Structures are given as C-alpha cells and as structure tokens.
C-alpha cells in the first residue's frame, strides 16, 4: 500500500518558501503565529493538522486570497522562485503558474460544468486546440463530469463539484497547485482516484503540489514530505515516510495504535489533544 516514491534526498530546487509568516484576520484575530515551509520543485508536500489549525489560511496567504477575506500577512515573507510574492495579484500568480483549489469547492454556480472548466483556462494563451485537448484530458480523469457537462454547476452533487474544482485548476496548466482538502466529501474510490491523478500529474507533468489534508492516511501515502500544523504553528515536519512511523502521528492522525486500526465503536472516551504543544 505504501507506494509513494521515496523523496530524493539529493538537492532539489526549492520552489516555494514560506518564512515565518504571521496572519491576522480583521485586524484582531491572530491565526498563524510564525509558519515556515518550503516546497521543493516537483514534489508533493502535505500540510496536515486538525480543524482550525490554519492550513487553509496558509494556502490563502500563499495564493494571496487573504486580502479578500480581510486577512493580512503581518510578518514574514513568501518567496516563489526566489521572488517575493506577497504583494502580487492572485491573477498574476496564476500566470506565474501557481493556482489554488479552494476548500469547499467554490464552483461558479450559474455556469455549466464545462464553462467552469473553461474558466480555468482563462490565463492561457496557447490556443483553442490545446485547451480543448486539456478539456478532454479532464474528462478522461473524471468521466462523471463529461456526463454532466451541460448542467449548471450549482445543481451538481457535492462530489461532482469537487471534481469540477480540481479539473478547473488542471485546466490552467499550472506549475504548482495548492490543493485544499481535495478528498473532502468524495467517495473512497474517488479519493484514491484523485490522489492517483495528483500523483500522475506530478510525475508526468512535473507539477508541484502543496496539499492541505485532513485525510492524513491517504495524504501521507502520496506525499513526499509533510508538515503538521497545530493552532497556527508548525509542530512537526519530516519526510512522509518518517511521519507515518511516528507514534504520535500514528495514534492521533492515523487512528492506529500498536494493535492496528481501532474500531470507531471502541472509542470509549473523547480525547483531547494538543499534547505536544508546549
């Protein structure tokens, strides 16, 4: 099962670097308290952590969507290919090859599925034929979308919308994709499928991924490197394989104890965590 390629330990170029950023919402709510990450080119980096840990916020800080939520990076820097990108417009960032798939789908409700996908190609200038080919590629990945291509996205099911969102990002031929909870709400088969797609895209097209996931199990299987975020701080990081073996991660994020997976029925008391936070 554990089939992720071992991360090449050789020197790889760091594509994206987040240095010690602090994020405040609404001028008063401090959410990230110094987060640093580095995303190597051509890798799949996972951002793990519980609810409210700040995963989404981190991704938005990178893609510069924070401003539209009245959030603000107050400290630290974000560097992409050696260039500070904090003040770049999201659209320019997409042109540079960084695209985000937002949490909770965010489809354009009134556009059809196909139109949604086509908006993904908004920044592209390589001609209709190339775009049509990619559309075909997305339909190959998600046959369900082909069936629903003429439906208004607002009327598709939750999982279908998730596929639209991912497909839309692929349509921009990105260099880096920031994926926020891609597995949420997808059927197990599809989760595997989506991660297979991620892997395929990563390997075949060399696209770099930074993904925020709750589904630690799957994420660590596909990622090369992982960061664990708690309450706005990175509490642990390491190669995916190492993290998978870490007993704390095992117990709290993978739901395994030494005896293997525990039944959900067996859980007898609620657990509270934040243990390793000092």
């Amino acid at each position, binding site marked *: 099962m554990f089939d992720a390629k071992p991360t090449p330990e050789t020197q790889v170029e760091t594509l994206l670097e987040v240095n010690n950023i602090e994020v405040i919402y609404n001028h008063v709510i401090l959410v990230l308290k110094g987060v640093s990450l580095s995303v190597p080119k051509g890798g799949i980096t996972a951002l793990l952590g519980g*609810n409210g*840990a700040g995963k*989404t916020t981190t991704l938005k800080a990178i893609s510069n969507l924070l401003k539209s939520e009245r959030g603000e990076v107050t400290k630290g820097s974000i560097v992409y290919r050696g260039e500070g990108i904090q003040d770049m417009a999201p659209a320019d960032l997409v042109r540079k090859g960084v695209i985000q798939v937002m*949490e*909770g789908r965010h489809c354009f409700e009134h556009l059809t599925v196909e139109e949604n996908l086509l908006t993904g190609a908004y920044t592209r200038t390589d001609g209709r034929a190339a775009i049509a080919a990619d559309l075909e590629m997305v339909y190959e990945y998600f046959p369900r979308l082909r069936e629903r291509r003429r439906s208004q996205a607002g009327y598709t099911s939750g999982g279908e919308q998730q596929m639209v969102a991912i497909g839309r990002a692929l349509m921009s031929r990105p260099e880096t994709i920031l994926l926020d909870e891609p597995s949420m709400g997808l059927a197990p088969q*599809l989760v595997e499928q989506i991660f297979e797609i991620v892997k395929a895209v990563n390997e075949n097209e060399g696209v770099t991924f930074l993904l925020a996931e709750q589904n630690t199990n799957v994420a660590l299987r596909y990622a090369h490197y992982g960061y664990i975020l708690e309450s706005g701080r990175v509490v642990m990081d390491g190669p995916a394989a190492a993290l998978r073996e870490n007993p704390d991660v095992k117990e709290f994020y*993978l739901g395994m104890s030494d005896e293997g997976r525990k039944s959900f029925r067996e859980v007898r008391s*609620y657990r509270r965590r934040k243990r390793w936070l000092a």
Partner: protein
Amino acid sequence: MKDMSEGYVTADGRQIGGVLMEMKNITLRFGGVVAIKDISFDIRDGEIRAIIGPNGAGKSSMLNVISGFYVPTEGEVWFKGVRRGPMKPYQVARLGVARTFQNIALFDGMTVLDNIMTGRLTRMKAGLLSQALWYGAAEREEIAHREKVERIIDFLEIQNIRKTPVGRLPYGLKKRVELARALAAEPKLLLLDEPMAGMNVEEKEDMSRFILDLNDEFGTTIVLIEHDMGVVMDLSDRVVVMDYGRKIGDGPPEEVRNNQDVIDAYLGVAHD
C-alpha cells in the same frame, strides 16, 4: 422485510424497535436528471442507518426527500405508521426530524449559541408581546431552553466558542455546531449528511462517539451519509447502498461489504 416490524437485536446487543419511517418506491426527477429511481427502504426506531454510494448517487437528495425539502416525483413516505402528505419542510421538522447539511448550512451572522438555540425554535412558544417586553413567559422560556442548550454545548465541548459568530469558525467546528443545532431539537430522527467530511481521524473518533452516545442515551434514530467506510462499517446497524439513483444493496454492514455490486460501484476494493 415486513417480518421485522417488531424489531431486531444488533450484534452488540441493542434492541432495535419497529419501523419508524418507511420510504416506498421513491422516485425523484429534476427535468431530465433522475436523482432517485424507485427506491424503497425503512428506518427503524433506534437504529443507526447508513446511506452510502458514489458521488452523485442521490444520497443527499434522499435526505432532502425525508426532510421534506424535495417532494418525490413518485412514491410515498410513511412516518410512524402514517402516510405523510405533502408537507412543508418546517412541518416535517415539527414532527421531530432534524438534520445537518453536506455544505454546512449554519446561520453565519449569528453566534454559536444563537445558532444552537434556533434548534429549539419549534419548542418555544412565548408570544410576541411577552418577548417584546422580555418579561414573564419569554424570559423564563429563554432561560429554560438555554439550560438545555448549554448541556449540548458541554456535550460537544464547544463551550469556549459559545459567543463567536459562526462565520469565523474553521470547517470542523462548524460541523460540530451544526450537529449541536440538530441535537437541540431533541429529534426523534436525526439525519446526518457527511458529518465527518473534512475531519481527521481523531476528530472522527470524537464525532463517532457523539453519535453513539446520542443513540444510546436518547435513543435517537440516526440516518447517516458518510464516505469513510471505517466509520460506516463500525457505527451503522444497517446500510443502504445507492448508485446512480438506484438501490444496489441493503443490509447489515458485513453483508453490504461483501456484496459484489457494491464493491464494483463504490468501494473499489474490499475494505478491511
């Protein structure tokens, strides 16, 4: 199926009662799209009933039919032995059906506390005048219900965000608040649409615990849609499997898990 009207005993020894709700030959169409095709199944008093199936299978639509938001194109819904006529959703709610939503449907402009209090609206009776003056019935009622709600808040451990507007909460907490709101209604039948999506294992464990306790302590009947097979297999007493609007399986988890149709359509590989 009819032979089980007096209930059955689950593997872990819980007594399940008679039929609480019965869906008979439900079909639901949206223009050309057939979301549900001639499905029948029943829900028994006190059981945890799961609905699973691939994306777009029609699970949420089925929940919407149960809660009265969609009116089935064909078919009948029976509740507590009575056929349910055409009903507005709020009337269904008053019969004791509460639910959570796949795409969180909290009231963003309100605090957590107020959101949960809305769960009790169907039970609050004070008149407009009394409310306007905040005197007598209104105040007593408010405090009485607040006590109940506080118990739920304790139960779900969300005390510290009581007065936070829900718009600001992270996804997982929102899910929990939504559950709290549904619980506040003290429903007979609780419908949960992917309550654990976007949670990590630990949080899922907590949520599972809530659901089980709820079922144990209050005898609440639960209909659960979930994509995490571990959860479904561990928690549910019986599972309905849907695929493209059809029902392709119905039975206890072990049975469903080994059903070849289900494996082909949904699970992919047999889950451990």
